[in-house]
């Protein structure tokens, strides 16, 4: 018979004032399943713990129940004390008679009776507890980063610089993300390219970073510490190993398609690198637009290439990488102009979005940094900026605040003033949100020194009249509607999750919220982790944020990864699901309920099995299993039924 000892804590007067501790002990001693029962004034004190250890040894106890405060406080304390006395820690349980009994009741009689029931229900459970060992899972100390914007770049560099290998997977031909498109960045106005390019180069050359651009994740299997990722390396149609990046082929290509990087403000060829500072600086052929792929004729690039690097017959490759942790840094897109009908729906030529304006401002952009409007190349003298275009509009567009546009619009107006001294910028806003270091001061500068006109109110509509773009809005502070005949209108369109993030999230089995951004495990306390173990988040894929916050979060995610990698193996709680092979009928109900895909079907044995590394011990499958084949360690159905009976006490 199992020898159980119960220790009832007085907690000074905290328990003893309401619960008659002596009577409780007396009651417990009557229970034949309890070998030893006693009380003590402060169980968690050193002598209290000593008492537990000594009693375990002297009374040869097999299990211990401490009736005290909430297990969230001292479960660990007493499990450690038990372990020190040679007991399996999972043979120690806590009965909560303080928070859930003595502190919440006044009737001493009833509180005492309740305490007895609480303790007995825990004793009933403990009686059937098994000795368990924590589950140990080896860790593959190699990380993958998905997305090569500033978030992915920073995370990759931090992890690689800590000594671990990183596989960086980027969908586009080059890393850099949106930051590469920006001109100067608020609030310090340093040149985006200038601070980003060195980092991109570092990634490209880093001995521990395996860079896979023009690649996408196809499939992920495994669990924290042991993922296997299948990656599709799209065929660039160029042999990057031999290509020197000379660019001759691009000069010759007859095709002209709008450049994505330059937001359609100029053209690129069918064979192209997205921008001159690209890493890797090797071209890809856009097969949808290449004359050869469409008609079978052309191959001008091939004949130009002196090293013979063009590979029209190159095929996509699927490669497999084994990693222990994955950082998801897939970034953002902006709401397409076409979506906002009242602002011209993308049809009015001189209505552009913020990223296009960045390209106009950028010294490496299509206008070499001169602000010229798309319709006729004229330098605009009246420029209207519209904030919250598609943001903060739960009825029609995105409900949330995009968080970066207030600041970048202010920056835009300011940079415009720097370029066009006699021009006038106007900003329509709902609020000006400047919650960052130096941001409020930046806004004041725009208003005070640059003479930007701020108009509080939404713009109703934007339309073209002659060569002007008319903006009808309101100035709620003046209480008047206003009209501005603008030369150029820049919309601060909402920041939305990157395309394909939903698909990717499904493959990774991580979660997205209602607006499509990746969900963190806890918005305050675990902001860089996904709910699913082994996945970490960085950058705008989680929610809109600026570069300082993106970089901080990326470093946070990287340090979580390196913290994980600091151990050879992980310990996991063993209170997980287990299947009785003889009972399981193979109905697979458990597989459908498991939120972590910890249940798999063993085709051979025709039963369901539990992947111990993935199981989080929620118990959902146990309750779902129609034939009781699945049980949860130390919380089996039998234990639960015994607990119920004990909790109801004798009639």
């Amino acid at each position, binding site marked *: 018979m199992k020898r159980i000892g119960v220790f009832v804590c007085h907690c000074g007067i905290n328990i003893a004032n309401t619960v008659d501790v002596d009577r409780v002990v007396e009651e417990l001693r009557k229970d034949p399943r309890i070998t030893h029962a006693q009380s003590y004034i402060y169980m968690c004190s050193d002598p209290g713990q000593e008492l537990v250890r000594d009693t375990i040894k002297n009374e040869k106890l097999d299990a211990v129940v401490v009736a005290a405060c909430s297990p969230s406080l001292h479960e660990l304390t007493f499990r450690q004390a038990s372990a020190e006395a040679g007991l399996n820690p999972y043979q120690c349980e806590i009965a909560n008679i303080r928070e859930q009994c003595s502190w919440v009741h006044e009737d001493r009689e009833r509180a005492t009776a309740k305490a007895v029931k609480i303790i007995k229900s825990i004793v009933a459970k403990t009686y059937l507890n098994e000795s368990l060992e924590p589950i140990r899972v080896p860790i593959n100390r190699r990380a993958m980063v998905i997305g090569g914007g500033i978030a992915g770049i920073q995370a990759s560099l931090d992890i690689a610089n800590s000594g671990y290998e990183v596989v960086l997977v980027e969908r586009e031909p080059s890393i850099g993300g949106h930051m590469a498109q920006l001109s100067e960045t608020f609030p310090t106005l340093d040149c985006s390219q200038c601070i980003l390019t060195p980092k991109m180069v570092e990634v490209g050359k880093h001995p521990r970073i395996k860079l896979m651009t023009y690649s996408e994740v196809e499939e992920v299997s495994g669990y924290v510490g042991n993922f296997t990722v299948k990656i599709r390396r799209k065929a660039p149609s160029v042999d990057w190993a031999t290509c020197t990046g000379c660019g001759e082929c691009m000069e010759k290509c007859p095709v002209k398609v709008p450049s994505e990087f330059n937001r359609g403000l100029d053209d690129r060829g069918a064979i192209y690198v997205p921008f001159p500072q690209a890493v890797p600086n090797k071209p890809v052929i856009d097969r949808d637009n290449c004359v050869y792929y469409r008609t079978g004729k052309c191959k001008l690039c091939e004949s130009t290439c002196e090293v013979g690097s063009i590979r029209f017959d190159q095929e996509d490759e699927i490669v497999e990488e084994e990693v222990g942790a994955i950082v998801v840094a897939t970034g953002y897109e902006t709401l397409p102009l076409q979506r906002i009908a009242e602002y011209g729906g993308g049809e009015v030529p001189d209505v552009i979005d913020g990223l296009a304006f960045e390209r106009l401002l950028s010294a490496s952009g299509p206008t070499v940094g001169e602000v010229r409007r798309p319709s006729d190349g004229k330098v605009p003298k009246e420029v209207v900026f519209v904030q919250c275009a598609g943001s903060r509009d739960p009825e029609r567009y995105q409900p949330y605040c995009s968080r970066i546009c207030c600041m970048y619009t202010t920056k835009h107006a300011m940079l415009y003033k720097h370029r066009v001294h006699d021009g006038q910028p106007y900003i329509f806003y709902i609020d000006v949100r400047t919650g960052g270091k130096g941001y409020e001061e930046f806004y004041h500068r725009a208003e005070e020194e640059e003479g930007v006109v701020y108009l509080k109110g939404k713009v109703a509509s934007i339309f073209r009249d002659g060569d002007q773009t008319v903006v009808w809005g309101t100035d709620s502070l003046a209480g008047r509607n206003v009209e501005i005949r603008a030369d150029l209108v820049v919309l601060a369109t909402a920041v939305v999750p990157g395309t394909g993030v939903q698909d990717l999230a499904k493959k990774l089995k991580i979660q997205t919220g209602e607006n499509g951004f990746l969900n963190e495990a806890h918005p305050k306390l675990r902001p860089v982790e996904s709910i699913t173990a082994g996945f970490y988040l960085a950058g705008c894929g989680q929610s809109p944020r600026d570069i300082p916050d993106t970089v901080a979060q990326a470093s946070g995610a990287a340090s979580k990864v390196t913290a994980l990698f600091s151990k050879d193996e992980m310990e996991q709680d063993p209170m997980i699901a287990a299947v009785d092979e003889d009972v399981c009928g193979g109905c697979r109900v458990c597989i459908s309920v498991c939120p972590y895909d910890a249940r798999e079907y063993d085709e051979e044995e025709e039963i369901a099995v539990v992947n111990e590394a993935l199981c989080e011990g929620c118990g959902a499958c146990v309750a779902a299993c129609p034939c009781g084949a699945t049980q949860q360690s130390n919380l089996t159905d039998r234990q639960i039924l015994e607990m119920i009976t004990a*909790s109801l006490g004798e009639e």
Partner: protein
Amino acid sequence: MFEPKIVCFVCKWCTSAGADLAGTSRLKYSPNGINLRFMCSSRVDPEHIMWAFRQGADGVLVGGCHPGDCHYQDGNYRTQTRMALLRRVLDQLGIESSRLRLEWISAAEGKKFAEVMDNFSEELRKKGPLSLASKEMTV
């Protein structure tokens, strides 16, 4: 006076933590319920509830995290569905389905926990003990 017996299945992350908060806040409520702490409300099997009634419980409370807050993503949705089904069965068995309560009580809702306990106890007091006849049926 009749004092009902209540078995409370509470999840570790939300409702049990909420009950702890009621304690640290020194709120006072009726001592009719005993909490059985599970990892997740989705561990609760209808079988457990039937057993509780059979063993003399006059009421059963299942407490979980608010929808969307489940520590295990969507365990509480499963619980919700299961409880809805079970209610129908209970009614068929002649046990008023109102003797089974499902409540979402977060770790911050100590006050709600206390209120639910008081309110449920009072309701069951009015209802009186679960009659033996129906108890037989559940066997």
